[in-house]
């Protein structure tokens, strides 16, 4: 049995049916647990209680990027192997990615207010996320605008491919443009002052929670898209008959 069998809509629907309750349960458990645990952590000696925002900001930012990568992979699978479920999964993932980007932007801006003294700073990372958000919006708008579903999948796939290159390019262009005052990666091993474990473990849990939340939402949304496609196919067939 090959992995591609899950690209069959009926097989996909049957498999996810049994998987979903477990996934939803663990997603709720981990995300609520991680975020709540994060909320209970003590204050940081420099940032005060604003450090608690990290448990939303970092997982959302991580998912914002990873969801785009997932869409890129799904688009490539559609373009190369023509599995409809793959294209629909990319379509289903985009709104989740856009919301995650929005959360990362909003929490970043709110955090920046006391830390940098301004709501919005054209800091390279915030700017990159704004650009990423624009790409998400364009991608979603293109799906909505094209009527024929296969053409829409093809066009958005090409856009995702080109958009990925330009999102990456913009990231480095923005770095060149403004060095910024964002703190370095919070979890990177090289940085001198590593995050203390008081914050690290809740953060890991929150990241896992956001990831599971994404998976659960993705499966539900993909199932929605499959049902819509099936309904449209049945209606079109009756019109013809």
């Amino acid at each position, binding site marked *: 049995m090959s992995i591609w069998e899950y690209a069959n809509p009926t097989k996909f629907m049957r498999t996810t049916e049994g998987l979903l309750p477990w996934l939803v349960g663990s997603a709720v458990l981990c995300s609520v647990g991680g975020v709540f645990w994060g909320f209970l952590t003590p204050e940081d000696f420099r940032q005060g209680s604003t450090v608690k925002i990290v448990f939303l900001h970092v997982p959302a930012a991580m998912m914002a990027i990873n969801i785009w990568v997932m869409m890129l992979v799904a688009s490539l699978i559609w373009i190369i192997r023509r599995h409809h479920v793959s294209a629909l999964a990319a379509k289903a993932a985009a709104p989740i990615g856009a919301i995650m980007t929005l959360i990362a932007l909003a929490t970043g801006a709110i955090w920046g207010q006391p830390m940098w003294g301004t709501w919005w700073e054209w800091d390279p990372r915030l700017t990159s996320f704004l650009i990423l958000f624009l790409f998400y*919006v364009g991608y979603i708008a293109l799906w909505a605008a094209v009527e024929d579903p296969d053409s829409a999948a093809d066009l958005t796939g090409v856009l995702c491919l*080109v958009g990925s290159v330009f999102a990456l390019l913009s990231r480095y262009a923005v770095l060149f443009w403004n060095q910024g005052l964002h703190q370095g990666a919070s979890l990177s091993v090289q940085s001198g002052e590593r995050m203390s474990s008081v914050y690290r473990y809740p953060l890991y849990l929150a990241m896992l929670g956001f990831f599971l939340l994404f998976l659960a939402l993705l499966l539900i949304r993909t199932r929605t898209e499959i049902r819509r496609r099936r309904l449209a196919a049945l209606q079109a067939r009756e019109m013809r008959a």
Partner: protein
Amino acid sequence: MIALLIRDLRLATRAGGGFGLGVAFFLILSALVPFGVGPDRATLAPVAPGILWVGALLACLLSLDRIFALDHEDGSLDLLATAPLPLEAAVAIKALAHWITTGLPLVVSAPLFGILLQLPVQAMPWLVASLALGTPALSMLGAFGAAITVGLRRGGLLLSLLVLPLYIPTLIFGAEITRRGAEGMATATPLMFLAGITLGVLALIPFAAAAALRVNLR
């Protein structure tokens, strides 16, 4: 291939609004900005490079939907797709025609608008150089956006939504070159980056645009 280029240029001159429109838009923009930010040399000069580059971007955007929309309506796009000319080449030629009708006049006339916006004289060569290097990428990326949205109702707004984010790297480096030129700093690094982006775009985007066109033609 040359036949297609000549035809597109001829159409742009005869149908009117091809060559002049972008420059006219650029002129209006340069005239409006001082009304908005004030006539002071001290306030205008620092923002001039950015205004000029954003203006070039918007002037380019204005005429993008014409690249394929007219050919799609009258059926010549179908005929071109069945012609011996590869669609990738047709896309590249049409982007070149777009650049000659909108990008090139902008490059040539940019110093004039630079004067209007109090851009320091030592920045003029850099303004022209950055536009000359950057606008071909704008036309090519615009052709990609036009290829994706050809045949869509309400395609115009979507086109700007798709294309403008793609313009960001070009805009950043182009404006940076002009700004550094105005301040008398070294411009080599952003110039290299801009040239790299433009060359990469010219080499690869025709394939993406042709793929999108084929999807829209079926």
